[in-house]
């Protein structure tokens, strides 16, 4: 700020307006937290999103790591059964189980691999062997696994799965919007700038498309061309561009009569260059505000598809998949519905508030 004149640009003013909007700022903060949670979370979690723990199917949410003493005991009985032995004595302390195994015949030490097979223990070692190997004292370290949100019907960690699902939802939301943005802005700007008959024909076409049952078309696309990840957001974007095209067209119509555009035309700038150089930058505000409201719609549509089983496929997951899974288990494991539903609601709620705030900040005249 040396010799430049102090000018408050419209962007600066918009930023100030936005910063004063408490709900919108809270929504923005929430979204940043959710994004961090989903992006960084899987690296910090104690489990992989696709790791299966058969011992912990439908485990309840708890902050205490698994296995609990009871679970460890049950797992020990299973392992002992495999070894054709009986558990004579167990002491669990300091994250390690000391087990005395007894059998009628000498116990094959190679069979201790069964400890590792269980979800509860890491590799076990023999401390003492008595009675010609018929009695073994074995030390098996517990394998602590945190399942704070419980586990699903396959014994997978719900928390990590929610993080992965959140990633998918956010990515689909962004990419779907990008597709809708590309089609909608190009279409609307060309129609608005061309005007006249071209405009009439192009917007008539949009009117016709409005009569299409879009959900149905997305379903058709997903069913026909495979449930590929790329297709999901392309299909969603391809049906969500109509509103964008209308808004951009309206804005372009009013922009092209303004002096700076007329001046550019008088100077002989080509239409394509005018669109890119003069029209497009002035569309950013309206488009950005609309985008923020489009994103939750895209995320919702993706969850809806996944709910119907037409979205991303296992073992990858999405919030819609998790919610539909939870809906099937509401009787025996209601947390499978609560947590994913809560995350989805938080994301959508925050995006809506952010969208409202952006619209108020960038486009004060709009509504």
């Amino acid at each position, binding site marked *: 700020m040396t010799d430049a004149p102090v000018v408050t640009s419209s962007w600066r003013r918009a930023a100030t307006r936005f910063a004063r909007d408490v709900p919108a700022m809270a929504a923005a903060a929430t979204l940043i937290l959710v994004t961090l949670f989903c992006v960084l979370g899987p690296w910090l979690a104690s489990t992989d999103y696709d790791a299966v723990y058969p011992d912990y199917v439908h485990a309840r949410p708890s902050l205490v790591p698994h296995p609990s003493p009871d679970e460890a005991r049950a797992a020990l009985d299973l392992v002992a059964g495999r070894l054709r032995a009986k558990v004579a004595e167990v002491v669990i302390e300091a994250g390690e189980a000391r087990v005395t195994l007894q059998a009628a015949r000498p116990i094959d030490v190679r069979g201790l691999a069964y400890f590792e097979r269980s979800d509860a223990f890491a590799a076990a070692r023999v401390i003492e062997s008595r009675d010609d190997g018929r009695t073994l004292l074995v030390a098996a370290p517990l394998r602590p696994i945190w399942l704070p949100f419980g586990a699903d019907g396959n014994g997978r960690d719900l928390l990590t799965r929610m993080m992965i699902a959140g990633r998918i939802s956010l990515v689909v939301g962004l990419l779907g919007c990008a597709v809708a943005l590309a089609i909608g802005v190009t279409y609307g700007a060309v129609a608005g700038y061309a005007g006249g008959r071209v405009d009439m024909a192009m917007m*008539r076409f949009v009117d016709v498309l409005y009569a*299409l*049952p879009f959900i*149905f*078309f997305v379903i058709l696309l997903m069913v026909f061309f495979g449930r590929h990840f790329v297709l999901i957001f392309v299909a969603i974007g391809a049906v969500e561009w109509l509103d964008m095209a209308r808004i951009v067209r309206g804005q372009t119509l009013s922009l092209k009569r303004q002096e700076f555009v007329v001046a550019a035309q008088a100077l002989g700038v080509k239409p394509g260059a005018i669109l890119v150089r003069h029209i497009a930058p002035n569309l950013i505000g309206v488009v950005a505000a609309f985008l923020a409201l489009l994103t939750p719609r895209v995320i919702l549509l993706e969850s809806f598809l996944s709910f*119907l089983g037409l979205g991303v496929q296992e073992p990858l997951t999405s919030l819609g998949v998790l919610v539909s899974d939870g*809906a099937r288990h509401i009787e025996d494991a209601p947390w499978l519905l609560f947590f994913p539903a809560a995350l*989805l*609601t938080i994301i*959508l709620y925050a995006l809506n508030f952010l969208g409202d705030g952006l619209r108020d900040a960038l486009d004060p005249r709009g509504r």
Partner: protein
Amino acid sequence: MPRMILVRVAWALPTLLFVVTLSFFLMRAAPGGPFDLERPLDPAVMENLRRIYRLDDPLWRQYLTYLTALAHGDLGPSYYWRDFTVAELFAKALPISAGLGALALTLALAVGSAAGAFAASRANSAPDLIVTANASLGVTLPNFVVAPLLQLVFGLWLKMLPVGGWGDGAPSHLVLPVLVLAAPQIAAVTRLTRAAMIEALASPASRTLRAYGLPRRVVLAHAFRAALVPLVSYLGPAAAAVMTGSVVVETIFGIPGVGRYFVEAALNRDYTLAMGAVLLVAAAIIVVNLLVDVAYAFIDPRMRLD
């Protein structure tokens, strides 16, 4: 005004034709056919089936056959539900979906406009904030989240209502589906009514009414008129969507409505049923848009000039 309606009606036909053509060829472009089962049929049976349903004809001829039948009001036989025509299936399912939808819309209109008017009359007060926050929650919450939650609370915990099923339309079976269908509409109606009425209450007309010393009820009634235009333009498309059946609600509650045919027909490659469903929705949207335009003229005399 009558001319505008004529133009609209004239546009309906090409629009429907476009929808039919697009969905016809899209469906046929898909891999698989209606008679592909996990265990393949006997080739001779398959050949007979394909001949009976004219799937051996060149595609353009099948298209023309379909269009001709359609022009006679015949939606064709369903390929999956043998022995049923698409028209028969719709005749059974559509009243159910439309009935549920109509109930939901009525509820939404009654509750939503009352809540919106209430919030507008006390704009920016605590009750207003509560109503607005609930409304944004209603707009945000997806129906496939609301539905299982309601099932859990009212069906499993409180044991007040059946979790699902149709029960031949018994009132207790209607409550949850109608609530789920209505929830987002209630929220949207509330928001629209509130926004329009706040603006109307600040207008000189309302100020004059207040200056005359008219009771608050009368002022609000006048302001409510301003909310009618946005309400009608919202409720039109919403009605088209809700009354032609919701895939999610009908799947979750196990209701034999049209919504389920959408997904099932696409998955089963039931060409005629899928086409019929698309056509049904498209026709509903077109009719409703026309009705909305006519309604404008009644609500707002200024719009009759166009």
